[in-house]
């Protein structure tokens, strides 16, 4: 697939100053190519009228921008302290073993890549696994294996708090580029933990 320069121009127009668009444009490049390609860097440099070095300086700063292809389903296991202690370490170890890949590795079929990630702001659902940056809450070794197996088979389970189906890495990247995929109304408004305080207060506690 090739980069749609007109679309890239609409992203640039969101901002009072064009350089601000560099991050959504990089997400957009990932939505087309699955990672930040040289073509992507050079095209952004041209459209924003900045040097390629300035684009790559930004692209290499942020963890989510990948300089080599990831899987169709990019799985991140939270191994920050709380999730790690509560099972994240065990899940990550099990998935490495199960998929036969190391951290940042991709399965040979290109379906699943694995990364240990930092705190993803869902600690009340620990241990947490993210797939294409969608929430899979309260994971166990078994549920995480089922997730990657489903992903490899082409039918991953739906996220816990997310749309009715797990979108691909490229599709998710388009969302992160600020493009609407029409799925905002799918999925729950909140998980149980989110609602706990409200529920208790309604119970008068």
């Amino acid at each position, binding site marked *: 697939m090739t980069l749609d320069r007109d679309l890239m121009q609409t992203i640039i127009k969101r901002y009072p100053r064009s350089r601000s668009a560099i991050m959504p444009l990089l997400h957009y490049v990932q939505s087309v190519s699955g990672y930040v390609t040289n073509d992507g860097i*050079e095209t952004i440099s041209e459209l924003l009228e900045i*040097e*390629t*070095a*300035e684009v*790559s*300086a930004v692209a290499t*700063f*942020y963890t989510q921008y990948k300089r080599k292809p990831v899987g169709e389903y990019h799985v991140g296991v939270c191994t920050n302290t709380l999730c790690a202690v509560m099972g994240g370490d065990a899940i990550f170890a099990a998935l490495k073993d199960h998929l036969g890949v190391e951290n940042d590795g991709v399965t040979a079929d290109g379906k699943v890549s694995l990364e240990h990630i930092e705190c993803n702001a869902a600690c009340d659902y620990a241990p947490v696994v993210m797939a294409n940056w969608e929430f899979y809450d309260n994971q166990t070794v078994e549920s995480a294996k089922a997730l990657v197996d489903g992903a490899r088979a082409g039918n991953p389970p739906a996220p816990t708090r997310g749309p009715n189906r797990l979108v691909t890495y490229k599709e998710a990247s388009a969302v992160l580029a600020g493009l609407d995929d029409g799925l905002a109304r799918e999925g729950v408004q909140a998980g149980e933990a989110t609602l706990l305080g409200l529920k208790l207060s309604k119970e008068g506690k």
Partner: protein
Amino acid sequence: MTTTQDSAVAVEMITVVIDGFEVSVPKGTLIIRAAEKLGIQIPRFCDHPLLDPVGACRQCLVDVEINGRAFPKPQASCTIPVEPNMIVKTQLTSPVADKAQKGVMELLLGNHPLDCPVCDKGGECPLQNQAMSNGRADARLDGYKRTFEKPINISSSVLLDRERCVLCARCTRFSAQIASDPFITLNERGALQQVGIYENDPFKSYFSGNTVQICPVGALTGASYRFRARPFDLVSTPSACEHCASGCDMRTDVRRGKTLRRLAGDDPSVNEEWNCDKGRWAFKYVTALDRLTHPLVRNSSGELVQASWPEALAAAAAGLKGKRAAVLTGGRVTTEDAYGYSKFARIALATNDIDYRARVTSDEERDFLAAYVAGSSTTYRDIDTADHVALIAFEPEEESPIVFLRLNKNFKKRGLKVSAVATKGSIAMDKLKADFIKVAPGAEASAVAGLALTAKSVILVGERASESAGLFSAVAALAAKTGAKIAYIPRRAGERGALEAGALGTVLPGGRPVVDAAARVDIAAAWGVDSLPATPGRTSSQIIDALASGDLDAVVVGGVDAHDLPHSHAVLDALKKSFVVSLEIAPSSVTAVADVVLPVAAITEKSGSFLNWEGRARAFDSAVADSHNRSDVRILSMLADALGNPISLGTVTSSAREFNQLGSWDGARVQFAPVAAGTAKSVSGNDALLSSWRRLLDMGTLQKGEDNLAGTRRPTVAVISTKRAESIGVTTGQQVRVSNAHGSITIPVLVEDIHEDAVWIPRNSFASQALVALDAVHGDVVTVVKA
């Protein structure tokens, strides 16, 4: 006068106490520099006086208290300006600051390799030095160190060793803030953060060498100096740059008679602490194997053979004696040498036929130089205070890079407005966001009249204005109308000095008009001769014509390459039929046809001075102490003796003394006769008007042998407009052929912002030597087709 104005501005002074000592400094001064005034050295890495404060390395932490309230933690002294009632305690008086500094130093050293014995920086390394003065005595970080692949080329000239880097970001900040070339950036994050380029775009900045010089560790090294020497084995000599008229202060480092590197010197009023890569890295021509070492005399069978100095001088004198002879000096000789040529022409050859302009010239230019430039005093400071700078026939980054840096500084710091009358846009114009007044080649003069300047504006006009009729006249008229100052910026280092020395047919030293009898008497008296020739001399092209027609018999040529002149074949033909004495450092097109060749000293082998475009003297001593080569003026003096008409300039010092004693002329100037504005020729179809200039890095003879430097040249391209590209069916990157009856040049095309009637090609770049290949100058008609 400027000084008086400056001193009239009251600077608010602030008194602070540092380590118990009071010091008064101008408001806005950073603590770290106020401490320097007291001789207190606070260690630092990221701090650089010409870069914006960043506070990144944290090495300069000190305790600060204002109005009795102490900051709870030590502060970076490189980021905080002094304030009234401030008390600062540095590492000398505050145990907290001392521990903080030692702590930071420990962390900087923790991941730093212990390769000082093989590091170019060893011996002059701020990290080494400050680790000794402000570091812990013992090491306790004994885990594993960060490793990177050892040095990577970030350009053909610069190597980067990321293990040594302390991430002070001086290099990346220089590139972004000073040069506006952000081709190197910080990449990655955290402990893996590293300086780097984008993999497909190397660090091709004209100013890249400055990053090597300001790197406080051995992370950035220059390819040409790497592993060559130890700093303590070098002998350093203050010098001046010979490559252009910017006038950079320099330092030349020599070991055992051989120049190993040159560095930018520190002159706040000229180059600050910067220079360009040509000035830094083009010096091997001095030690090139083909240097002329002995005089040569053409023998009876027409071959140039080695001769002794007495033989050669006698042969030269014999060939010149009683002949109608002229002098051509290139724009590269020192002021002292130019003065020697000027006096030699008038006394030894009894002629005013002398011209230092070895390039495309005009009579309009000659008159403009005599009327407006000789004795003028527009300076860099005027750029600093200008409300508007107009660039006329002048591409600052290519033709006087330090002028570009000064323009860029003023653009970045205070939004200086810049306008450019030109055929084609340029990288520098983009960087300066210049107002681009696009004109067809030849039509510049009419466009200049419309510039809205004021008495606070400065017009920077380049030597290429001589290629467009009426352009100098338009500049003069604009200056007269608006009160704007004129600054004439030639490319070559020796041009302004040669003008002031009178190496021009219409002026004697100090801008004295040849036609003015009083001026001639003035100089004749100083020189101790009865009279001076009264007829204004020929220009360089007239001299060539006269040699060709037989109106002149002989010529003394110093530092001229025939290929710099228009119609170089005709030039060489004219020289071939004349008696030619050539003073040169290396074989050239002129020495090849000369009758007597006299080898002269190169810049590092002699003392002397240049006048930069401001007219400011840039003096230097011989960097190589024991060279046997002699400056032009000494050889001319010997030749004059041999001719029996002594000029008595046996040394550079005597030449300088005599020239300076003559002083400037307060009588009437040469009258400037305005020339009508030219127009562009009309073209249609595949015909186009040629435009070209020299790039900073090109096939110039002083860049000979500098392969690393050559690797950072800008690519050779022919620039045409979108409309022309569509019309001839090419896109950027495809080949085009630019041709005329004389020849053709086939190079890749770049579709860019250029006047539709024009094509631009570099004048002296690889595969594109416009003067030689096309024998065409600015505004000539050429044909552009897809190749």
